[in-house]
């Protein structure tokens, strides 16, 4: 089955799954913000609101055997990957029932079971690791893809250059997903990159690439299928740029001095969740009731995650030095 055929099969039921996934991420993020305000969550918290289509669409194109690496803005990717929402919320509470034993918090979600390898908070630091994981897969003859999410800002780091070159040289199966949300903290794309069309970085490494509307989950899914198919067929890396936008501040410490309220509002018009919801309603695949029901379910799932986190326990202090060494 070709990528196109696969996308054709993205029928109503698949679309509903995607919608539910995005709704879950949206609601989970809103709840996280709330819990931050209540000081249940601390440290840095980076929300994914507005960008849901990227993680949702890309992850839907992966198989459970594939590896996923992400940044500190990774709740969406973790949820889409199937990491338990309760374990994520508990992690942000710092409880030992969290997916990283509560040690990592929002920026460091790890879950070996679902092959979710962080939660990496040094910008671009995980790109070389992704190449290495793909190298291991190649050496072990496992037909797996390593999917690595990172931002537009990350593409300016030297490690982006080194990782792209290594992946291309070694011909290893990495899907580089650049979540171009137009800002790196307060630094607009044009102040980060001399060439703002990020796809133009790929030819310098001989890496196949595509750019996709990251506010359209179906387009993302389609592009991701194509990318993943190409990778599985050729064994080579692929660079996928997803054009998206974060509706919220960079983190909870951000007065958003660097961008216009209007710009934010314009992008909110392109809300990926509303867009798919409207489309599904228009296609009569979904009734108002269905939507309500779905939202309620999602709400309950998020509430359960909070309950789970609340009931979680603190890791005893005397275990603090456990796992410095294995």
């Amino acid at each position, binding site marked *: 089955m070709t990528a196109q055929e696969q996308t054709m099969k993205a029928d109503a039921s698949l679309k509903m799954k995607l919608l539910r996934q995005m709704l879950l991420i949206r609601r989970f993020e809103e709840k996280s913000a709330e819990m931050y305000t209540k000081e249940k969550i601390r*440290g*840095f918290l980076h929300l994914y609101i507005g960008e849901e289509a990227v993680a949702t669409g890309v992850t839907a194109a992966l198989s459970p055997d594939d590896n996923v690496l992400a940044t500190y803005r990774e709740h969406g990717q973790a949820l889409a990957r199937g990491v338990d929402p309760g374990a994520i919320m508990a992690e942000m509470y710092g409880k030992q029932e969290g997916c990283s034993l509560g040690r990592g918090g929002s920026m460091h979600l790890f879950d070996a079971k679902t092959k979710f390898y962080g939660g990496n908070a040094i910008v671009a630091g995980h790109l070389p690791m992704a190449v290495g994981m793909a190298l291991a897969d190649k050496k072990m003859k496992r037909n797996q893809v390593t999917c690595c999410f990172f931002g537009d800002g990350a593409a300016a780091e030297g490690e982006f250059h080194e990782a792209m070159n290594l992946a291309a040289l070694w011909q290893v199966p990495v899907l580089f997903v650049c979540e171009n949300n137009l800002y790196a903290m307060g*630094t607009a794309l044009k102040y980060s990159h001399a060439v703002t069309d990020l796809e133009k970085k790929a030819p310098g490494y001989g890496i196949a690439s595509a750019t996709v509307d990251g506010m359209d989950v179906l387009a993302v899914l389609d592009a991701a299928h194509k990318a993943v198919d190409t990778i599985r067929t050729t064994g080579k890396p692929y660079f996928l740029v997803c054009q998206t936008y974060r509706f919220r501040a960079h983190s909870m410490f951000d007065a958003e*001095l660097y961008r216009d309220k209007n710009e934010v509002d314009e992008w909110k018009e392109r809300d990926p969740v509303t867009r798919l919801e409207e489309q599904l309603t228009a296609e009569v695949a979904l009734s108002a009731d269905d939507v309500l029901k779905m939202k309620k379910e999602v709400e309950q799932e998020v509430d359960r995650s909070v309950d789970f986190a609340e009931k979680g326990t603190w890791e005893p*202090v005397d275990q*603090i030095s456990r796992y410095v060494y294995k």
Partner: protein
Amino acid sequence: MTRLTYREALKQGLREALQSSDKVFLLGEDVGRYGGSFAVSKGLLQEFGPDRIMDVPLSESGFTGAGIGAALGGMRPIVEIMTVNFSLLAMDQIVNNAATLLHMSGGQLNVPLVIRMSCGIGRQLAAQHSHSWEPLFAHIPGLKVVSAGTHEDARKMIMAALLDPNPVILFEYTAMMNLEADMEDPLPAVDLSKAKLRKSGKDLSLITYGSGVYKCLHAAGELAKEGMEVEVLDLRSLRPIDTEAIVASVRKTHRALMVDDAWQSVSISSEVSARIMENCFYELDAPVQRLNGLEVPMPYPKHLEDAAIVQPSQIVNKVRQMLG
């Protein structure tokens, strides 16, 4: 007297530096439009314009190296590495270029560069964002390394660093940003090379720097209530270290406790202990002790973070034990 937060003190210092010469400019990630990740440079873009307050792309090695080049070219750049956690990416530039060029070129090329970094632990930022890496830099000849453990130093060290013809690494402390204190206005200049006695006492020397200074002062206050007069020596300069001031203090008190949040092995506290060993062994009434952060990548939850860094109560207990 003015009452200022540590953040405002830093900003005042930066402003003063920028006003001192047109050659001075600040470059770093998000120092301009964002207002600085800890709001230290907020408003300075509006005040000095984009040529003096330069936002840069994520490229720590690149822009730090560019700072070195600009310094060689006659400008007086102040490079901000957003936090010490990202400094490893610029470490090659700092060590192999900034610290080395003067000696290696036979005295031809000095690098008058100031590199500021926010540093330290205490806001639940977890393992990749909670570091006290002063020791890594203090090891390197050719660098000067200073640490602003008080509001006065936050205010005055930047200007002093700028007047130095050598590369100076200036550590600022994230966890202290909102802390308020009164300070004289105008404040006298500081001498970067000298430690400063923050409180004098006769029973024991607390030797510290950075985030340890206020903790030690707090502990000293508690101990005073119990009749123990401890003195607090703020090293301020971590390279070179003011051995004379350490020796003078230990000669007086005959007991010393080093306090800092960095990992203990191969740290400033190790160095201070070794220098006391070499310089006033026969003056010691008891072995020098060290209180440091726990040697673990920093965990996120508050109770574990608290357990991993030095608490004033620990200092009090340790001193009681040493004097008991």
